[in-house]
């Protein structure tokens, strides 16, 4: 925890944006470690893949376009500091009333959580409670989250992809193509990463994992490929139009499971009616919607990265 605080402070005072990006990466990795300590293995998994991997890369690609150093000038740092300190003191005052850390009588532990822990074994019969809550009890929320990811993807594409100016980019050599060791190691690693992503996808019911993590891991293998062999090469390999359709398809799969269960006489996203047996129905439903989530998240991350990366190529060519 203290490390987290130190990293955040160094971030606040670093002038070099490249260093700041590295600090955010370290910060994410530390918080992932903290999540493991707090028993939240699924969350730690996601944070390690997303925070230390994808978001760091995205920020790096952005600062290559927007410049590495920020303006020295701060806006009224004293006033900002005062506002921040006052807010902080008020918040600390608020924590006085909060239940002690780790207490099992805290309000958060006595509402619906005991039901999930006691009943999910019987209702859904899969060991990972996080997956049962995510996909079944709170399926509607998760549907919303997937739609948000999809909407953000549309936003990024709308901002960067469709407003293109200038001609198509030629086959520029990739920035890291000359590193032979990296190329060979990643050639071995990329299939392994993809395989691991599939394992995480389909084993999410028994161990930490699921569609969200699998999607991010799968995307990171494609991003690795793009960094080593060039963005245009990667765009050929994954075929942009197909990926765009797949992103929409993932959301569609999720939604249609809900509609099918409605047609079978249940509520939206009530999987019990999908098969003869309640529990089998739940299993079928969860596997299908996890697949939908995985497809959407993976393709969204790939598309966002490739769109950003291509933009850099264009900008550097224009200035050249």
């Amino acid at each position: 925890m203290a490390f987290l605080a130190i990293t955040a402070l160094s971030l606040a005072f670093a002038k070099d944006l490249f260093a700041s990006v590295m600090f955010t990466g370290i910060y994410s990795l530390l918080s992932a470690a903290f999540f493991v300590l707090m028993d939240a293995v699924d969350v730690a998994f996601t944070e390690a893949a997303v925070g230390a991997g994808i978001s760091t890369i995205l920020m790096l690609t952005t600062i290559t376009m927007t410049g590495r150093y920020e303006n020295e000038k701060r806006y009224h740092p004293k006033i900002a500091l005062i506002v921040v300190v006052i807010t902080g003191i008020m918040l600390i005052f608020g924590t006085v009333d909060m239940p002690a850390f780790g207490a099992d009588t805290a309000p958060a532990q006595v509402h619906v959580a005991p039901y999930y822990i006691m009943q999910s074994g019987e209702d859904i019969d899969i060991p990972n409670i996080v997956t049962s809550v995510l996909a079944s009890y709170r399926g509607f929320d998760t549907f919303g989250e997937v739609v948000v990811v999809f909407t953000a993807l549309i936003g990024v594409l709308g901002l960067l992809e469709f407003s293109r100016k200038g001609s198509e980019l030629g086959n520029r050599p990739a920035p890291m193509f000359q590193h032979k060791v990296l190329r060979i190691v990643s050639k071995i690693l990329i299939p392994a990463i993809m395989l691991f992503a599939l394992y995480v996808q389909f084993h999410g019911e028994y161990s930490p994992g699921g569609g969200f993590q699998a999607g991010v891991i799968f995307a990171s293998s494609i991003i690795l490929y793009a960094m080593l062999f060039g963005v245009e090469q990667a765009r050929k390999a994954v075929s942009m139009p197909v990926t765009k359709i797949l992103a929409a398809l993932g959301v569609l799969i999720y939604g249609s499971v809900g509609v099918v269960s409605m047609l079978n006489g249940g509520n939206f996203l009530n999987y019990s009616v999908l098969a003869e047996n309640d529990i089998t129905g739940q299993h079928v439903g969860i596997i299908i919607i996890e697949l939908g989530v995985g497809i959407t998240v993976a393709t969204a991350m790939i598309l966002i990265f490739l769109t950003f990366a291509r933009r850099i190529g264009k900008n550097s060519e224009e200035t050249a």
Partner: protein
Amino acid sequence: MSFLEQYNYWVVIFLMMSGFYIVIAHGNLVKKLMGLTIFQTSVFILYISISKVIGGTAPILDDKYNVYSNPLPHVLILTAIVVGVATTALGLALAVRIKEAYGTIEEDAIQEKDLQQEGSTE
């Protein structure tokens, strides 16, 4: 003991305030987004801290254990992380477009250019 009971929450508040400070005191848009990320992660840490039960284990059912940490906050934060990176990507995309349109992502420079433009059209 009563001091340590609240320690996690205090660190969360410290992180949250550092993020907040970065957002309001820095002019660079990318840096502001980093501040927001710190702020966001501090909220994640708050939720996960709340879900911890002392003596509990990770919420994966097994006959050997009968105390588990609360799975519900885990679900909320798990999805929030992925949504967070998607929205951050959207913010970065906006920053890139602003850079292309204005040639800078420093707040005051952008405002100056806006004012100049208003002056020239009037």
